[in-house]
């Protein structure tokens, strides 16, 4: 039977405010347990929340970046449930009126085209603390440092039809929140977390199938794997004549499986109601204009600019802009007056490959943007060929100095002395008379052979363009 998949994502993006959303305690990661939880975070009797304006501004930045409807009057609600790492017995969140309403974002899909993914809403809420179950044998330990950390929960429409699209969307949001400086995007530390709602239905059906919610996904790779696993599981279930149960499922990356966590029947009735300790959040037009004008260039805008201004391909422009750090690196190279297209190729090509191979972040690259520009400039001014440049890059990566240092010390400078090249060409022609005859009688393909011989003689230092030109002249 033909099935189609429907996916929606809920992304929890930790906002990079200095202090918590409702208290003055620090949000820094990795402190000693319970040292960054003040009276408010501990939920002591009598304490009250006070909204951190910075978190509101960050939510608005996001809303404006995805062209969303901003609710200029939004309210905080209490989501009631008992858990030891939830100190107040309720989480302050937004329910009926979130600060960010309907918006959208464009993703690139596999066939090279694009697709609009709807954003249902994005709301502000506080994070809970952490329960640590494996520290003591008979007890669970609670660390409340994270309690009260601001989160922006971004809920998508069920607009994605396969795992790859879901990953593309998640990556797009991941890039965006970093672009606009509201989240550090660190998935290991849990600053960016995805839950996926997955359902399948018969191809062409209008009604949505019963969905399951996949939790505990902390990388894009796992997101793809978890969704694919779940789709197969749901297909098997339905094809066996059984029904998919609405439930929350946990993804286990060690066992590469999803398993049931709790069913809908076991789900809490959260008894949402407006938090009487907090006033509604009212946003005036002036603030919105101010925030909008302070937004940086967004990935989509950047992409079109790269295509229009530098003639980059859509593919290259997409890749370069998908991570802010790469785009920043690229733009730093332009600032050094390196040629754009060549720079783009080097960032996405050699540099990206070397970083991947060494599992390094671009911020920790041993070759700086300025240094890579130095290399690119030597290609542009024909000091070295692209091929030699790869060797220079390797040497630079190993810390042997700047492009110019490497070219100088290893004598890699391209031959520009025409008479020297000419004499080598003459020598090559003289010692390959058979091929010369074949060429002259019409086998033009042999030009490559002659170029190769010349390059071999010059140890690659001859300018290939020049060699081509001279060979053409001398062989005709």
């Amino acid at each position, binding site marked *: 039977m033909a099935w189609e998949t429907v996916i929606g994502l809920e992304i929890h993006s930790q906002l990079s405010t200095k202090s918590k959303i409702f208290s003055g305690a620090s949000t820094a990661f990795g402190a000693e347990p319970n040292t960054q939880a003040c*009276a408010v975070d*501990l*939920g*002591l*009797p*009598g*304490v*009250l*929340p*006070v*909204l951190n304006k910075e978190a509101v501004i960050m939510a608005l930045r996001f809303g404006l970046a995805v062209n969303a409807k901003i609710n200029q009057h939004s309210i905080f609600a*209490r989501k*009631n449930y*008992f858990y*030891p790492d939830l*100190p*107040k*017995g*309720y989480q302050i969140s937004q329910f009926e009126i979130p600060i960010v309403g309907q918006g959208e974002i464009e993703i690139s899909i596999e066939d090279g085209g694009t697709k609009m993914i709807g954003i249902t809403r994005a709301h502000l809420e506080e994070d809970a603390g952490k329960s640590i179950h494996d520290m003591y044998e008979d007890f*669970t330990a*609670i660390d409340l440092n994270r309690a009260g950390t601001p989160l922006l929960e971004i809920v998508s429409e069920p607009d994605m039809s396969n795992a790859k699209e879901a990953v593309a969307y998640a990556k797009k949001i991941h890039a965006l929140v970093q672009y606009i400086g509201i989240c550090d995007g660190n998935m290991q530390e849990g600053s960016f977390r995805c839950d996926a709602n997955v359902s399948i239905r018969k191809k062409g059906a209008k009604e949505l199938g019963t969905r399951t919610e996949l939790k505990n996904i902390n990388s894009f790779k796992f997101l793809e794997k978890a969704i694919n696993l779940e789709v197969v599981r749901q297909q098997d279930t339905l094809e066996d004549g059984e029904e998919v149960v609405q439930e929350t499922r946990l993804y286990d990356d060690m066992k590469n499986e999803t398993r049931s966590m709790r069913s809908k029947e076991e789900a809490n*009735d959260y*008894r*949402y*109601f407006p938090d*009487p*300790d*907090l*006033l509604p959040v009212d946003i005036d037009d002036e603030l919105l204009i101010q925030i909008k004008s302070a937004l940086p260039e967004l990935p989509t805008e950047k992409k079109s600019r790269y295509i229009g201004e530098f003639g980059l391909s859509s593919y290259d422009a997409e890749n370069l802009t998908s991570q802010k750090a790469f785009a920043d690196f690229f733009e730093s190279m332009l600032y050094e007056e390196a040629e754009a297209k060549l720079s783009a190729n080097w960032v996405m090509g050699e540099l990206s490959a070397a970083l991947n191979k060494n599992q390094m972040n671009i911020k920790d690259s041993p070759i700086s943007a300025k240094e890579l520009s130095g290399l690119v400039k030597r290609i542009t001014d024909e000091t070295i060929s692209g091929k030699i440049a790869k060797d220079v890059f390797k040497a630079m990566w190993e810390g042997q100095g700047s492009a110019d240092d490497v070219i100088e010390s290893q004598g890699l400078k391209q031959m520009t002395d025409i008479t020297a090249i000419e004499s080598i060409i003459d020598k090559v022609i003289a010692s390959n008379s058979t091929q010369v005859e074949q060429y002259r009688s019409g086998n033009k393909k042999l030009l490559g052979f002659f170029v190769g011989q010349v390059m071999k003689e010059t140890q690659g230092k001859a300018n290939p363009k020049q060699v081509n030109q001279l060979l053409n002249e001398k062989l005709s």
Partner: protein
Amino acid sequence: MHKFSVAELSKGLKNKDFSSVELTKHYLRRIDRSDLNAFITVTEDLALSQAREADSRLAKGNANVLTGIPYAHKDIFCTKGIKTSAGSKILDPFISPYDATLSYKLNAEGMVMLGKTNMDELAMGSSNENSYYGPVKNPWDKKRVPGGSSGGSAAAVAARLSAFATGTDTGGSIRQPASLCGITGLKPTYGRVSRYGMIAYASSLDQAGPITQSAEDAALVLNAMAGFDDKDSTSVNKDVPDYTENLNNSIKGLKIGIPKEYFSDGLDDDVAKVILQSIKEFESMGAIVEEVSLPNSAYAVPTYYIVAPCECSSNLSRLDGVRYGYRCDDPKDLNDLYLRSRSEGFGEEVKRRIMIGTYALSAGYYDAYYLKAQKARHLISEDFKKVFQRVDVIMGPVSPTTAFELDAIKDSVSMYMADIYTLSVNLAGLPGMSIPAGFSKNLPVGLQMIGNYWSEEVLLNVAHQFQRQTDWHVHLPENT
């Protein structure tokens, strides 16, 4: 000394007629000899050290009006290093690591805290019989209740165990015990006094205020209590006037509205007589009295008993035995820990309200209860707004009866009806006051005055003028 008002004590301290240490010792001795059960905790050592400090401030001449004045603090306010139980077993082991804003402010004035007063558990009750620490006795008749929930504070002031006391009022918890104990109580406009550090019962209704011997004292104390607090988002950033400044304004031409709904069937005849008599007194002082209508008054009790339980069911979730407070012995697992800590830690009435609130907020019931109650609340506020376009102050009874006997009211609904005249004020967020207006069978009767938003000055002025004409507020229980 204990017969002096705060205003008189302040003069006495300034004139060195007595020291704060002498005054404090005097009150501590009175508390020690009292059998009213008005205090949960007496902070003798702290009081004496604060008194010594106050005396040194007085000697140096950098004292405020309230420096050195002993007071009793309702046990609902967090006090750093001191047990803060809110009358509940679940907080019996709780020593607050921080000061409520109000505690901090009173300390900063150089006042002397004698102790923490008894109250209905977590401020839920109208008789002070719901306290884990036992009921408080009414100083006018020890077989009777002092009212609640600020019963300990009211009894302490009525018996002059303290110069004044703090209270909180969610549905009448300052005004009703003030009425039943024959003293003056003021519930300010919602947002006037910080709620930070005040253990929350129903956040949108709770408001702290002074319980005093007179309107003049209430003005002096409110000066120290009121003001914006950046730790409380619902406190309002509005200038605090000097509440003593206009106490002596003439009330000639004052327009008083008498809501006909407040003189309904349930009102005790004697209480009605006292109230009408006191209204005549105002007329004789030049006030103009007219009948008004608050047509939605009948909905106050049901509305309150949805809104308050909904909020408290959530507010009290933090009392879970996990981080502080009472925890059951040997919990089997997490669920058992929650279940038994809370079942054993909370009293009957608190559990009842948690159940009501949890039910009313549940999926499928929210619209029918919570939302409907919010609509009714809005209508009740609108009633007041309309009436305040015509009158300056609304007057009526505080409580339908005088103090009733301990154990006399057994069912909770009858107990809820004791607050019928006070609940609307909290639902609307208005300021309200209770002042002694007379007696019925040797038991005090309080007159309720309700003002428009932020009109505490008017209420205090009107009350003070009444107290200049009458002496109900200086009557004392026998042997006081």
